[in-house]
C-alpha cells in the first residue's frame, strides 16, 4: 500500500528560498540545496519548489537550483511557477525535476497539458489549481491567485486529467495561511471525480489537520510551507501523529 506523502513547499525568489526558514543547524537559511537536504534528513517524502519570480532571467536560475538540489537530495522533486511551454517543462526535467507543475498556463493554453503528457509521460505533468469559493462555487484562480476566473474548479480538475495531468496540486485559497485545517469538502469533491493522485495544500496548522485530510478526503499527499519552515511542526511530528491514527506513512 502506498504511503501518504508529507510534502514541504519552498518558494524560491531569484535563487533563494523566500520565506525565512528557521532550522538552527543550517549555515545558510536561504540556500535551496541546504534546506532540501535538511528536509530529506527529516523524512520529507517529496519537495515542491515554486518559482515566484517573474522574469526569464530568474527562470534559468530555477533550472540551476534543480540541478544542484538533485545532485545532493534523492527524492522526488516537483517544480512549478512560470511554466509556459514545452521548452520550460523540458528544461526543468532535464535539470533533474521529476514532475513539473503547470498552473496559469494550463488555463490559458490547455493544450500544453496534453503536449507535455504526450512528450514526457503523464506521471511528470502536475496541474496546480488555486481555488476560492465564491457564492457557493469553487472557482479557479490564476497568476498566483491574483486573477479570478469563472471556471468551476471541480470541472477543471476533470478536464485537466482528461488532457493528461498525472497529478493535481490543489490549493485552497480560503484556507491558505489560516492554519485551521485543510479544505476537506473541496478535496472530497475532487477525489470523487478524478483517479489521479491529489496533493492538498493550504491550511495546515497542527498535526491533526494532516490526519484529518488523509482520513476524510483520502488525498495522496499533504503540502505545507510555513509550519515546517518555522519549525512549528516537524515532518516527524506529523508522521508520528498520522501513523498513530492508522494512516500509512513512510
Amino acid at each position: 500500500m502506498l504511503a501518504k506523502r508529507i510534502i514541504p513547499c519552498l518558494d524560491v525568489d531569484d535563487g533563494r528560498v523566500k520565506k525565512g526558514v528557521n532550522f538552527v543547524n543550517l549555515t545558510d537559511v536561504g540556500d535551496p540545496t541546504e534546506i532540501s537536504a535538511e528536509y530529506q534528513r527529516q523524512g520529507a517524502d517529496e519537495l515542491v519548489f515554486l518559482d515566484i519570480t517573474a522574469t526569464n532571467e530568474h527562470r534559468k536560475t530555477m533550472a540551476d537550483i534543480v540541478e544542484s538540489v538533485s545532485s545532493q537530495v534523492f527524492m522526488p522533486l516537483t517544480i512549478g511557477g512560470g511554466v509556459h511551454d514545452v521548452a520550460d517543462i523540458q528544461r526543468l526535467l532535464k535539470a533533474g525535476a521529476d514532475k513539473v507543475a503547470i498552473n496559469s498556463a494550463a488555463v490559458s493554453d490547455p493544450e500544453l497539458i496534453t503536449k507535455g503528457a504526450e512528450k514526457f509521460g503523464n506521471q511528470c505533468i502536475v496541474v496546480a489549481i488555486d481555488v476560492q469559493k465564491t457564492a457557493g462555487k469553487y472557482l479557479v484562480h490564476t497568476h498566483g491567485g491574483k486573477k479570478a476566473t469563472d471556471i468551476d474548479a471541480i470541472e477543471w480538475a476533470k478536464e485537466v486529467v482528461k488532457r493528461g495531468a498525472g497529478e493535481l496540486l490543489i490549493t485552497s485559497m480560503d484556507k491558505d495561511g489560516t492554519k485551521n485545517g485543510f479544505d476537506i469538502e473541496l478535496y472530497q469533491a475532487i477525489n470523487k471525480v478524478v483517479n489521479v493522485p491529489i496533493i492538498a495544500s493550504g491550511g495546515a496548522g497542527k498535526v491533526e489537520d494532516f490526519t484529518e485530510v488523509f482520513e476524510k478526503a483520502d488525498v495522496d499527499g499533504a503540502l505545507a510551507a510555513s509550519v515546517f519552515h518555522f519549525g512549528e511542526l516537524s515532518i516527524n511530528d506529523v508522521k508520528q501523529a498520522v501513523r498513530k491514527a492508522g494512516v500509512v506513512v513512510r
Partner: protein
Amino acid sequence: MFAIVDYDTGNTRNLMKAFNYLGIDNELTDDKEKILQAEAVILPGVGAFKAAMAELEKRNLVNTLKKVATNKTPILGICLGMQLLFDSSQEYGLTNGLGLITGSVEQIPDTGLKIPQMGWNQNRIIQNSPFDDINGQFTYFVHSYYANCDRRNIISAVDYGISIPSIVQNKNVIGMQFHPEKSGSVGLELLKTFQKMVKTNDFSSN
C-alpha cells in the same frame, strides 16, 4: 567503471547524480566496447517498453546487452530498464524484451487503486539476498506495468492490489522496479549494496 546505457531514455542524469554522490565511477555511454568492458552495466529507463526496445535496437545494443549477461557481467535494470530484462511486454502490443529473466511485463490489474502506482511503497523480502535490508523499507515507484515472473526470481515485493516484484534477480542480472536514485538513503544504500556485490562477485543467492 559502471556503464550507464545511453539510449535517449528519460532522466538518466539523476541516476548518474546518485552514483556520483556515492563516489561510484560511472559513464553514460552507448559505445558497445565500453559497455562490454564495464565492471557493471546499468540499464535505466523511463517511458514505454516498445519505444525503448526500438531505441536499443536502433543502437545495436540488444545483442550487446545479451552478451554482457552471458559474460557474467553484473547488470542492473531500473524501472523500465528492469522490465526490459524480461521476455516480453504487453504494453502497446506484444513486444519482445531482452529475455534475461523469464517472465512477462503486464499491466497492473485494476483493483480500484490509482494507476500508475506513484509514490512510496513498503517492501517485504521474498527470499534472502544481499538486499535483505530492504525489508520493511519504503522505496519510490512510478509505473503502470509490472513483471509477472517466477517466484524464484523475486527478491522482494510490494503490495499494490496484487503483489508486485520490487527487486528481481537471475544470477548476475538484477532489476529494481522502483527508483533507487529517488528513494532517499534507502535507495542509496541499495546502490551501494549492488556495488559491493559487483566487487565481491556475490551473485550466488539465486
